[in-house]
């Protein structure tokens, strides 16, 4: 199989839009990806053909809704190579997945226990653990990065020990683009019997996540960052771990037997999925992953590498541009600051040229402080971006430099 970016673009209706008369150049994929027509259709089809609540109706619509919804769970399980479909827990997104784990663990942590995260965390994977530690008296240890945005593996290893209960880190950093060596980090944590959670928000859209091969206990991601709808995500966890995981949300769907004074929990996956789920979202996400898995992963990765390589090369020619995050193993993300212009100014002027990027602290304030900056401008690429768009971005950037200089 090969990779035809023009054909792929044609599947994303939004990409043919213009902004102020200029073709949209969408380089904010780290924030959210666009949706192919098949995903949009799956949402419309659900609401037009079989909208009903799942697992409860004694009627045909509900049966059909349940079938599509549970089929989506199978699609996710296949995509991430889960050992078992019951390991796929629907959430509203990465944030909720991490919270489900952290709120549960907080009930068990005590003083003397340690949780290890890294300096490159998104707030979702930092504040959550920080608060779990504050509540329980456990200690949060923050493993340092080098100035280029790579994790300092030796220090990371040194931070682990017999008191380490949980190790949480991103697959790919949203601010720096660093790809972490997930298997290696997981093996280090497992040497001490710690649980491992991988924040997969940015990792999921770049190809071949195989949760069994990674060896972690939890992998959390958001549908909207992998061509699916917003408001739906997945927490994958090993069955043996999830089966006894303390429940965080209680209510309908997740119970077995209820009396006025007591309740027992149902089996996986329902015990961790209280309330009516985002049914349409789940179906849309299943469709998105099915769509994605039909592509040639190696070709997708080669294309994305060509995009970031081209961006890095062109960046070297821009005076006063400093890249934030230059790890050896880097994907999809070009964060930078300019000597002569604030990120917000750059964002304004690119926006007027139809070029969408992110500016600001990247939801990682402590990381920005660690790097001695307030924020960055960030262009982030997806498989449907083209080399021409990378060049258009740099042309736009030069114009911003001229205007702001």
């Amino acid at each position: 199989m090969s990779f035809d970016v023009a054909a792929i673009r044609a599947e994303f209706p939004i990409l043919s839009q213009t902004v102020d008369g200029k073709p949209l150049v969408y380089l904010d994929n780290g924030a959210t990806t666009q949706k192919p027509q098949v995903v949009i259709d799956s949402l419309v089809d659900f609401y037009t053909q079989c909208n009903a609540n799942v697992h409860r109706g004694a009627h045909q619509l509900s049966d059909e809704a349940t079938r599509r919804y549970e089929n989506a769970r199978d699609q996710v399980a296949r995509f991430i190579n889960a050992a078992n479909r019951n390991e796929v827990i629907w959430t509203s997104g990465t944030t909720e997945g991490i919270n489900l784990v952290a709120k549960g663990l907080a009930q068990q942590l005590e003083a003397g226990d340690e949780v290890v995260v890294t300096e490159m965390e998104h707030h979702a994977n930092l504040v959550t653990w920080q608060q779990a530690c504050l509540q329980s008296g456990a200690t949060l240890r923050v493993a340092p990065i080098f100035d280029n945005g790579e994790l300092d593996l030796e220090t990371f290893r040194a931070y682990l020990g017999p008191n380490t209960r949980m190790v949480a880190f991103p697959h790919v950093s949203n601010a720096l683009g660093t790809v972490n060596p997930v298997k290696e980090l997981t093996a280090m944590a497992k040497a001490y019997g710690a649980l491992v959670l991988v924040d997969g928000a940015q990792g999921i859209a770049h190809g071949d996540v195989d949760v069994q091969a990674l060896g972690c206990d939890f992998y959390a991601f958001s549908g909207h960052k992998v061509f699916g709808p917003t408001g739906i995500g997945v927490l994958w966890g090993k069955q043996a771990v999830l089966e006894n995981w303390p429940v965080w949300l209680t209510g309908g769907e997740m119970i077995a037997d209820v009396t006025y004074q007591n309740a027992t929990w149902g089996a996986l996956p329902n015990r961790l999925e209280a309330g009516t789920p985002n049914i349409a979202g789940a179906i849309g996400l299943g469709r998105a992953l099915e769509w994605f898995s039909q592509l040639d992963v190696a070709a997708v990765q080669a294309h994305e590498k060509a995009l970031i390589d081209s961006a890095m090369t062109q960046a070297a020619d821009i005076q006063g541009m400093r890249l934030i995050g230059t790890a050896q193993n880097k994907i999809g993300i070009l964060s930078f600051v300019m000597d002569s212009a604030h990120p917000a100014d750059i964002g304004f002027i690119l926006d007027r040229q139809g070029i969408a990027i992110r500016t600001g602290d990247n939801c990682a304030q402590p990381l920005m402080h660690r790097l001695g900056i307030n924020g960055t401008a960030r262009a982030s690429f997806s498989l449907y971006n083209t080399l021409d768009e990378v060049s258009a971005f740099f042309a736009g950037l030069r114009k911003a430099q001229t205007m702001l200089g």
Partner: protein
Amino acid sequence: MQLPSSQEIIEDLEFFDDWEQKYQYIIDLGKALPRLDDAQKTPERLVKGCQSSVWLVISMDGDKIHFEVDSDAVIVHGLLALVMAAYNDKTPAEITAFDIDEYFEALDLERHITPTRGNGLRAIVGKIQHLAAQHGG
């Protein structure tokens, strides 16, 4: 360059037909608007947006309210100049009577002043209006 009045700004901006000229004008307005000393940029004067930050210093000058502002971004500083042209050294009653939404619309810049933009401009406008109301405007 002396800071023009809000009416002059509307007329100036109407004159330009492409966005580059408009933005250059706003950048230049920002350059004409004095900045604060670092010592004046205290946390209580900071209006934090998620993309850029602005500072607002308030003093009374007779029955008029005097503002000094700053931003860490050039274009935001220029947008602040637009706000200052409307509000600075005016009485609370004049501030309250001024239709800021109509003004932004006339400037054809509403897109940048929406609350979602996160650049702190909306928050500054809200603060100024609130202050004027407190002073009987």
